[in-house]
């Protein structure tokens, strides 16, 4: 029997949904136009007035929003709700080291929790479930997102946060966890550690995994290792966090919670909207958000919307796996990494210019390996090994504080990295999903 958190909404007819989306979009455009100078200017620029938006079909008339808008108006410039109504901030790393900051009103937190609760139920959880949350708690939305979802559902949230694998396993065993929420690569790591130490978790039945791209091959591996059903969850802090979309019992793609988040797929070259089943950039409009509503926000994730009826009965459209990015962002150990952040650090070591570098990512023992190869410069070099090692350590710690994850720096000979005409291909990503 398929379970729903809110069957009436999740299974509403497409025509009802369209009417609801239209009503919400009209209200949203009116709200941002009258309360946010940046949106007003953007719309005035292309001569679109709130009265031009009469239904969800008119969304194509509206301008896009990008990460750059958030960065240029750091930290709170893109907020539409007044400060007194904001109750929480989250942030993710953005390009050039600046955080992308999002603010939530009470209602935003509530909608987010509801969507995360829908995700938990779609994966089979209920009020009696013990939900072990191994996503990081903090500015990152992973931990608190699933946590509030579990509480909203009335399940038991275990805020284990990330790290200390041995403790994670004993907590899950002692508390008889039924649901595990973490990144898919950490799930594999956990499973392998359990196997090594001979621990079994007979009560664990469900895994909800996201924050990094993964595949059906990984799904099979996780399901076998942990003896569970593994479900995908999608989200990004700009839109709300985990729970923008998630998988049902059919495990065939994430249903997008379209009553709150309106998806479009755009041709990455022309930015023209594409039909279902075509690959392009995923764009979201937050139909009900108050704190920092985003209109046609370009996620840079490449995927498609699937034109198929789901056996689970939900009418919300499903998205395919994320198959790439339309920018050069990498997700390493669940953390967003932009080459521009790396460049900000490396600029200090290049005798006044950016040293040639290459980003190398691979996956060993289910853990992402992250290395930055930097061509030796006079600023780094010394006749003493000790001094070079010191500079290397300093680079690694500066990179770590910029990126939020540890990285190995490897110093290589000048001119040894490949040179490219035009845009440099600085990323070697050998991870297999």
């Amino acid at each position, binding site marked *: 029997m398929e379970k729903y958190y809110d069957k009436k909404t999740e299974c509403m007819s497409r025509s009802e949904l369209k009417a609801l989306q239209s009503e919400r979009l009209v209200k949203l455009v009116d709200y941002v136009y009258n309360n946010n100078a940046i949106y007003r200017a953007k719309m005035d620029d292309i001569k679109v007035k709130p009265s031009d938006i009469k239904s969800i079909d008119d969304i194509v008339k509206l301008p896009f929003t990008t990460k750059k808008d958030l960065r240029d108006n750091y930290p709170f410039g893109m907020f539409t709700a007044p400060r007194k109504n904001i109750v929480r901030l989250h942030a993710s790393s953005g390009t050039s080291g600046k955080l992308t900051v999002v603010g939530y009103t009470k209602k935003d937190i509530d909608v987010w929790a509801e969507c995360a609760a829908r995700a938990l139920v779609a994966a089979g959880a209920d009020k009696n479930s013990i939900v072990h949350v191994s996503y990081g708690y903090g500015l990152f939305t992973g931990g608190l997102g699933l946590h509030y979802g579990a509480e909203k559902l009335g399940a038991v949230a275990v805020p284990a946060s990330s790290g200390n694998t041995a403790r994670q396993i004993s907590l899950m065993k002692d508390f008889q966890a039924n649901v595990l929420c973490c990144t898919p690569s950490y799930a594999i790591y956990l499973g392998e550690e359990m196997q090594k130490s001979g621990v079994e978790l007979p009560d664990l039945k469900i895994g909800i995994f996201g924050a990094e791209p993964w595949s059906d091959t990984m799904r099979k591996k996780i399901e076998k290792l942990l003896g569970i059903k593994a479900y995908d969850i999608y989200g990004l802090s700009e839109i709300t966090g985990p729970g923008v979309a998630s998988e049902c019992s059919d495990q065939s793609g994430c249903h997008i919670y379209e009553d709150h988040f309106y998806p479009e797929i755009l041709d990455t070259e022309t930015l023209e909207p594409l039909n279902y089943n075509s690959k392009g950039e995923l764009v979201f409009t937050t139909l009900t958000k108050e704190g920092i509503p985003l209109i046609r926000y370009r996620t840079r994730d490449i995927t498609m919307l699937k034109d198929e009826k789901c056996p689970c009965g939900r009418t919300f459209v499903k998205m395919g796996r994320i198959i790439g990015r339309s920018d050069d962002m990498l997700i390493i150990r669940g953390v967003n990494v932009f080459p521009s952040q790396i460049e900000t650090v490396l600029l200090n070591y290049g005798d006044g210019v950016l040293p040639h570098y290459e980003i190398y990512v691979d996956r060993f023992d289910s853990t992402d390996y992250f290395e930055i190869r930097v061509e*030796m*410069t*006079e600023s780094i*070099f*010394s*006749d*003493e*090994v*000790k001094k*070079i*090692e010191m500079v290397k350590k300093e680079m690694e710690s500066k990179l770590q504080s910029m990126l939020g994850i540890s990285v190995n720096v*490897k*110093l*290589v*000979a*000048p*001119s*040894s990295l490949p040179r490219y005409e035009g845009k440099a291909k600085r990323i070697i990503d050998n991870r297999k999903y």
Partner: protein
Amino acid sequence: MVVNQIAVFLENKQGRIYDFAKVIAEAKIDLVSMSIADTEEFGILRAVTSDNKKAVEALKKAGFTVISTDMIGIEIPDVPGSLAKVLKIMSEEKIQIEYLYSYARSEANKAYIILKVADNEKTVQLLNKRGVKVVSDFK
């Protein structure tokens, strides 16, 4: 009273020392002395040549990362125990040696040692005072 040395970055790859030697040879520079310090990931080749300035130029042109550093050179008798004697003095004077390597001229019964210390001037003064023969650039 210092000895100039060049230091070259070498990636741990086959043929890199040859590449270095080839550049030096083609620039018609003599290698007077050479030592390599290596770690798991890279090596530092240190050398004294007949013309360090020319060597630095040629190596940079060939794409090497190279720097030159002033070192202390000392002359000691080429008999057992003479280096230990100098090191004892340096340890008594609390002069920390970062690294050293030797160079022995074939015709003489003298040995030459090149030392890297933090403060050249102070070290030279102390060594002079203790009767150690300090030499400048080997020509």
